[in-house]
C-alpha cells in the first residue's frame, strides 16, 4: 500500500482522480472554457453576432479610444485616492475599537460594519437621493453654514468623483476594519506592555508594533480592495443611471465594458479586450503590492 503511494505513482491513482473528476469537469466547463473563449474573443471584432478575426486591432483601438482612456484614468483615480484613505481609516478605527476600556465598543463596531450588509444597489440609490441638489446633505451643509450654495454632487465632474469615493469608502471601510480587528486579537498583549514600560509613545506603538504585525492582513485587504476598486460598477451605474456622467467623469472600466456589450452597438470582442485590461492591471498591481510587502530581512 505504502509503496504504491510513493513517487510518481500516486499521481496515477485512478480512484483519486475519479473523486475529483466531477469538480474538475465543472471548473473546466464554467471557469477555464469561458476564460479561454473570452481571450479568443478579444482578438475578434464586429457587430453583434457578425464577428471576424481582427488580430491586434482591438488593442490598437484601445490607444485611440478617448472614452477608454477616460475610463482608465477615472478607475486609476478612484484606486489611488480611495484605497489608501480607506485602508488607513480602517486601521485607525480598528485600533481605536480594539481598546478594551472603550465604552460601547460593540455598538461602534456594529455601526461601522453595518454598511457592508447593505445591498450595493440599495445604498447607491439612497446616496443618490441624499446627495441630490435639494437633498438632505446639501440642506444640512447649508444649514450649518459649510456651503453657501448647494454642492452639485451629481452634476459636476469633480464632485461626482468625490461622491463615488465617499460612497465606496462608507460601504467598505467597516469590511476592512473587521479583518484588522480579528488580526489585532492575535497580537500578544505583552508586546504592547513591554513597549509601554520602555516609554514608547502611543503613536510609535501604532506605527512600529501594530502596523508591522498586521502586514500580512494589510497586504490581503489592499489586494482585495484593489481588485474591488478596479471592478467598480454598481455604485457608478446606480448613481448616474448607467451613464458614468457627468461628462464621463465617473465612468469606470467595468461600466464601459457593460456599455460596449449591452448599451452600445454590441461589440463583444472589444468588450473582452477591455476586460483583459482589468485582468492585466489587477495582476500587475497585486505583484507590485506583494513585492513592496516582501520580507526584506530573510
Amino acid at each position, binding site marked *: 500500500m505504502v509503496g504504491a503511494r510513493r513517487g510518481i505513482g500516486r499521481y496515477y491513482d485512478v480512484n483519486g482522480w475519479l473523486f475529483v473528476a466531477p469538480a474538475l469537469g465543472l471548473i473546466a466547463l464554467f471557469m477555464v472554457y469561458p476564460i479561454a473563449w473570452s481571450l479568443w474573443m478579444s482578438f475578434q471584432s464586429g457587430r*453583434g*453576432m*457578425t464577428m471576424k478575426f481582427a488580430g491586434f486591432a482591438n488593442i490598437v*483601438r484601445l490607444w485611440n479610444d*478617448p*472614452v477608454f482612456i477616460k475610463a482608465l484614468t477615472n478607475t486609476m483615480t478612484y484606486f489611488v485616492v480611495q484605497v489608501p484613505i480607506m485602508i488607513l481609516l480602517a486601521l485607525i478605527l480598528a485600533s481605536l475599537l480594539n481598546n478594551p476600556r472603550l465604552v460601547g465598543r460593540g455598538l461602534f463596531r456594529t455601526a461601522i460594519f453595518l454598511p457592508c450588509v447593505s445591498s450595493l444597489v440599495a445604498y447607491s440609490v439612497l446616496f443618490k437621493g441624499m446627495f441630490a441638489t435639494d437633498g438632505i446633505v446639501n440642506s444640512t451643509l447649508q444649514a450649518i453654514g459649510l456651503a453657501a450654495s448647494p454642492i452639485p454632487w451629481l452634476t459636476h465632474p469633480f464632485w461626482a468623483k468625490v461622491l463615488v469615493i465617499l460612497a465606496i469608502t462608507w460601504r467598505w471601510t467597516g469590511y476592512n476594519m473587521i479583518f484588522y480587528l480579528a488580526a489585532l486579537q492575535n497580537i500578544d498583549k505583552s508586546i504592547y506592555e513591554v513597549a509601554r514600560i520602555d516609554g514608547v509613545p502611543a503613536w510609535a506603538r501604532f506605527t512600529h508594533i501594530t502596523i508591522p504585525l498586521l502586514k500580512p492582513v494589510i497586504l490581503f485587504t489592499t489586494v482585495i480592495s484593489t481588485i474591488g476598486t478596479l471592478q467598480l460598477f454598481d455604485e457608478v451605474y446606480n448613481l448616474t*443611471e448607467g*451613464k458614468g456622467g457627468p461628462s464621463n467623469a465617473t465612468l469606470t472600466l467595468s461600466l464601459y465594458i457593460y456599455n460596449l456589450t449591452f448599451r452600445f452597438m454590441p461589440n463583444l470582442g472589444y468588450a473582452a479586450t477591455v476586460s483583459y485590461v482589468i485582468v492585466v492591471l489587477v495582476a500587475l498591481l497585486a505583484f507590485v503590492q506583494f513585492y513592496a510587502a516582501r520580507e526584506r530581512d530573510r
Partner: protein
Amino acid sequence: MDIQARAYLPRIAGLALAGASFLGVTAAQAKEITIWCWDPNFNVAIMKEAGARYTKTHPDVTFNIVDFAKLDVEQKLQTGLSSGTADALPDIVLIEDYGAQKYLQSFPGAFAPLSGTVDYSGFAPYKVELMTLDGQVYGMPFDSGVTGLYYRKDYLEAAGFKPEDMQDLTWDRFIEIGKQVEEKTGKKMMGLDPNDAGLVRIIMQSAGQWYFDKEGKPNIANNAALKAALETIGKIMQANIYKPANGWSDWVGTFTSGDVATVVTGVWITGTVKAQPDQSGNWGVAPIPALSIDGATHASNLGGSSWYVLESSEEKAEAIDFLNEIYAKDIDFYQKILQDRGAVGSLLAARGGAAYEAADPFFGGEKVWQNFSDWLAKVPSVNYGIFTNEADLAVTAQLPAVTQGTPVDEVLQAIEAEVSAQIQ
C-alpha cells in the same frame, strides 16, 4: 451520498427536460404569444388591450405580456440574441426606434421580415424607413414621439403672454420669454438634465439632420443643425432659465411640481402631465420653437417605439397576424389607446377617427390630438443609424464645455473625434 446524487443527476435532468418539452408542446397547442415591453401605464396596457381585441376573434390565441424596465428589456434581448439560443426570447418585443437598426444589423436573421404581410403605405414614412434594412421592412410601427411645447397658461399669462404668443416661436424668442417669465413669476422656463441629450436630438431633428447622414457616416463637425442645437442649449444655460434635474424622475418632477413653465418633449408625456388633476386647465400645447437655419421646422420626434417579431418564435405566424390585424387595420383600437393612454400611433388612417377630433378639457378645450397628428406628418425623416447611443453619450460628455463658453466648433470636433473612435 454525493456520488449517489450525481448518478441520479442525468436521470433527473432527463425528467426535467422531458417535462420542459412537454410544457412546450402544450404551450404550442394553446398558442400563447409572449410579449416584452416596458411601461405599465403605456405600452403594456396598450398591448393588453390589443391582445383582448385579438382573442375575441381568435379564441385559441392567448397572450403573456411581460413587463420589464426598458433598460432590462434591451439588456435581456441583447443577451439572448448574443447567446445564439432563442429559448429565452419572447415572440414579440418592443424596441425603441433609436435602437432598431442596431438590432437589425447586429443580429441578421433574428427578426422576421413583415414586408409581404403588412401594407406599409398607411404608416408615417419616417417610422417605416427606420425599420427597413436591405429592402425588407421588419417591424410593426407603434407609437410616435412627435414633439410639442407644453406650457403653463397661468404662468405665462402672469408674465404677460397669451396662447397666441406661444405659437411658432423661435428658440431665441423662447429664451426671451423665459427671462420675462422668471422676472415676473419667479418660475424657471424649463427643466433640463445636463446628462440627457434629448433636447439636442429634438432640436437637431426639427431641422432635418441627425448625428449620421443617410449613409450612416458621422455627420457632426459640419452639421449646422447640431451646431445650432448646441448653441441653443448654451444660450438656455447662460440665460439660466432652466431648473437643473438629475435623471428622469427628477426631470419629471420639475413640471409635475409646478416649478417650471414649459416642457419640450414627446407626446407620450401627455399622460404624465395629465396625472396632476389640480393643474387641469392650466396647460396648453404649441408647436416646438424652431431654429433660424435652413430647413428648420416646428416638428420633431423624441423616442417612440415599434413591435418586432422574433424569427425563431414558434408562434411567428400568429404573432404577425395579430400585429397586422390590430396595429395595421383596427382604427377603433387607435381611438381607444389615444383616449385612454395618450398614444399617438403612426397609422395615418387613424387620424380620421373621432378621438382625434375631440377637445381635451385638461388643455382648456384645445384639440391637442389633431394638432399632434398634424405635426406628426411634418416630422423630418432622418437616418437614426446604429450608433445613436454612442453619439448621445459623446454629446452629453461635451455639454458642460458648451456652457463654459468653449467655441461650439471645437466642441463639435471633440464630439466627432469621440464618436469616430467608438463606431468601428
